[in-house]
């Protein structure tokens, strides 16, 4: 009986929960979010007379949580569970509506389950967050243009550098895995969508939900403790720390949901014949990066929860006065912090290896070694966290073992270089912009990698730790390598999302500005560090002036390069040269479907008979 009823229901053209639930969008998300935040702030004031010393902290936390829940409700993230709770099933029409069928550009402002829409939303969101972090970087560098500059006061400077760090980490985590892990990866697998389309939309809008309290931090006094928020200064600093912490916890919900979705999609949604040894290398990178994120990111949410409890509920996880220790924070932070570097790096490497094969017109060199290299990096990366703590005084006996694991990472990292070089080797190098960014990546990653080896060595780290040398080192990795990879990926896959090329000339100008800017900024910053300038100094001794001025000039150059690429994306999206479905003559599946890619991607799911790197080999019968 029941079955018959259900059958009738799902066939009926009528939809369940139409009307209001269908009208939810980004605007209603903001409105409900603000209502949630206001309720969270004023309700405690209304109901509690006895306002203890931590009351401001408690109210900020509740308010930030109210924002997140309100935003989720307003964007429609809770509509699915809500309907399920009421016993309404989603009809096919409901699901098509959720996927944005026939809604034109409006779907980009909605809780849309189409993975391609989510990918584009991620691309725009990553650019917005990178822009915000980039503006802060320029403000920081402007303040450092002279030794005692008071362009901003020290409190604002500390807030800027804390927010710059966190914004950039978040935007780089989503810069490659967000747009292309969503837009490209399911098509590369031969899937019609992600395994959990609604969770996919949830992961995207949860980043938005996290970004707002994160930016709010700046306007409610900022934080004084850097993006690493070491305890106990994180307990001492102002109420901005609460919104910062809620932003992190919210962001971790997003990465966890996205990680589960990525892993499940790749493990279960591959088309016939797409065995794991035929999977495109970018999909492998998404799998490894996603799985690593699942391990790493929850540490951050846990540690931030403990910080909130220490601040507002009288616990003492990190306070030495009552039995806690800041070393606990440092361990939990870096248990997240080091794998997270590779959560950022590995998808970028995957994208660049795709670029290397297509633009060298050769198969990927030593495919299985490449996978082994990425997996080896991921595996080792969870065993190296305490190299960030060599000089904290915690467990000096563990220095040797952590030096060992850290230096071992240079072996799988070397493999990535070998695969890139082997793929380029004797190829017909088609020097289009994606390939140019790849070349820049390789050159910069050498410097980022080698300087990491110095820092892994304890006697050297004893002088280098906490200096501008470290800052220059990880900026060579994050800006010179990951950001170059992310931009290369945009130049590569942009024709697929828009049907248009990005302008070559602007791409080259952008590359050279960014490439020269990176060398000028960060080589000078290495020198600042070697000469003894600590990081996070708002003012510095006169001996560091020359190198800081050079770094500031370099930083402006990088910004100019980024603006050229931004203008390129905006202009080309409107009026770029039409590209057709497969402008690079690539063989991965995303290029073999039409542009624009139809909803559910494939009319008939393809059957796969070889990996997609058969350049110069006999054509396999691919779909």
């Amino acid at each position, binding site marked *: 009986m029941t079955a018959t009823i259900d059958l009738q229901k799902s066939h009926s053209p009528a939809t369940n929960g139409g009307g209001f639930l269908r009208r939810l969008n980004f605007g209603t998300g903001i409105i409900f979010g603000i209502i949630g935040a206001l309720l969270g702030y004023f309700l405690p004031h209304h109901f509690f007379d006895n306002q203890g010393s931590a009351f401001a902290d408690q109210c900020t936390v509740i308010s930030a949580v109210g924002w997140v829940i309100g935003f989720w409700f307003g964007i429609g993230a809770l509509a699915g569970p809500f309907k399920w709770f009421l016993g309404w099933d989603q009809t096919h029409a409901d699901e098509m509506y959720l996927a944005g069928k026939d809604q034109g550009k409006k779907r980009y402002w909605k809780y849309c389950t189409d993975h391609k829409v989510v990918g584009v939303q991620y691309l725009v969101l990553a650019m917005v967050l990178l822009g915000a972090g980039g503006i802060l970087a320029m403000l920081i560098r402007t303040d450092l243009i002279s030794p005692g500059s008071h362009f901003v006061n020290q409190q604002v400077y500390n807030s800027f550098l804390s927010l710059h760090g966190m914004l950039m980490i978040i935007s780089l985590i989503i810069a490659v895995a967000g747009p292309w892990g969503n837009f490209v990866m399911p098509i590369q697998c031969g899937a019609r969508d992600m395994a959990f389309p609604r969770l996919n939309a949830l992961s995207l809008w949860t980043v938005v939900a996290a970004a707002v309290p994160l930016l709010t931090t700046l306007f409610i006094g900022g934080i004084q*403790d850097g993006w690493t928020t070491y305890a106990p200064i994180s307990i001492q600093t102002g109420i901005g720390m609460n919104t910062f912490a809620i932003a992190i916890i919210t962001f971790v919900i997003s990465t966890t949901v996205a990680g589960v979705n990525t892993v499940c999609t790749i493990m279960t949604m591959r088309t016939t014949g797409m065995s794991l040894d035929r999977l495109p290398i970018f999909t492998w990178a998404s799998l490894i990066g996603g799985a690593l994120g699942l391990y790493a990111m929850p540490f951050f949410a846990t540690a931030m929860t403990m910080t909130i409890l220490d601040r507002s509920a009288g616990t003492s996880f990190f306070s030495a006065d009552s039995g806690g220790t800041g070393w606990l924070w440092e361990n939990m932070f870096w248990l997240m912090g080091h794998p997270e570097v590779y959560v950022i790096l590995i998808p970028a490497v995957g994208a660049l290896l795709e670029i290397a094969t297509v633009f060298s017109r050769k198969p990927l060199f*030593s495919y299985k070694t490449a996978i082994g290299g990425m997996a080896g990096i991921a595996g080792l990366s969870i065993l190296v966290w305490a190299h960030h703590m060599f000089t904290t005084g915690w467990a000096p006996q563990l220095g040797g073992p952590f030096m060992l694991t850290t*230096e071992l990472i240079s072996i799988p990292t070397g493999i990535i270089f*070998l695969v890139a070089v082997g793929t380029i080797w004797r190829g017909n190098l088609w020097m289009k912009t994606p390939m140019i960014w790849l070349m820049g990546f390789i050159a910069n990653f050498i410097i980022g990698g080698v300087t990491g*080896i110095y820092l892994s060595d*304890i006697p050297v780290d004893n002088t280098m730790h906490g200096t501008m040398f470290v800052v220059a080192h990880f900026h060579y990795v994050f800006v010179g390598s990951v950001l170059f990879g992310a931009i290369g990926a945009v130049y590569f896959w942009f024709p697929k999302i828009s049907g248009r090329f990005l302008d070559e000339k602007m791409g080259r100008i952008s590359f050279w500005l960014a490439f020269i800017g990176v060398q000028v900024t960060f080589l000078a910053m290495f020198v600042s560090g070697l000469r003894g300038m600590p990081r996070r100094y708002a003012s510095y001794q006169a001996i560091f002036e020359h190198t800081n001025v050079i770094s500031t000039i370099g930083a402006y150059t990088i910004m100019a390069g980024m603006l050229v690429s931004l203008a390129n994306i905006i202009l080309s999206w409107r009026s770029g040269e039409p590209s057709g479905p497969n402008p690079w003559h690539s063989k991965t599946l995303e290029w073999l479907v039409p542009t624009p890619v139809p909803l559910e991607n494939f009319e008939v799911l393809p059957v796969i008979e070889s990996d997609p790197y058969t350049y110069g080999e006999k054509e396999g019968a691919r779909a």
Partner: protein
Amino acid sequence: MTKNNSNKFSLKPFLVIWAVLTAIGIWISIKGTPWLMEKSASHQMHMAILTVIVFSVAAAPVAAGIYAVQIYALAKWRYKGEGVPPDAEPLRNNVKAVSAWIGVSALLTTFLLIWGLAALASDDNVSGPNPMTVNVTGQQWMWSFQYPIAETLLHHNVESNILVIPVNNQANFNVTSVDVTHGFWVPSLGVKVDANPGTVTTLSVVPNKPGWYDIRCVELCGLNHSAMITKAHVVSDKEFLTWLKEQPASPAAITTSVKN
């Protein structure tokens, strides 16, 4: 598809590029490092500079190799025609190259590790005559140094805001903080350890050159972090004793001082 167009690789020009780049790298490593880095006034700093030089020399051929391939590839293998280049000759794998690459990087890593462990051991075993303890306390945003030796010699506390230690004698620092985490760093002595509230961390160093050196906080500690700098003065034994006797008796231990 057009037929395979295979690019040639000739070893000689490649080796020339590689050799030149390696030579430049090694020259910068040996000549540049001591010029760029803080001057050494202790064994630890000496080891740090030496290690940077050795690692740079070891890394130079590797980095130069990658750069040489890039330069060679851009010069010789760039497709100059119009449109999509034809497919190149496929190269799926080369077991010898992969094994050699992994073997060489494993050997290099082993070397780095052995060097590092040996340098670490020599740093940890630093010892000199007349070991003297100095209690270092960080607080927002200043350093203070207490000399327990004054209680023995002069029967009163001595506390100072600059660090004065005798040259060629062993100084043992007990480092702590009264508020948040600070980082105690004397760049020229090549030693650094965090000052954690509620815990004492230790450092030993034998300064081997008299002079004035900087002390800087290297752990973000709030508003005036960048102003948390002071001086270290390394002096002769005699000067040290004179200085110590000139210091006024400090009324109380620093740990009772009021937080800023």
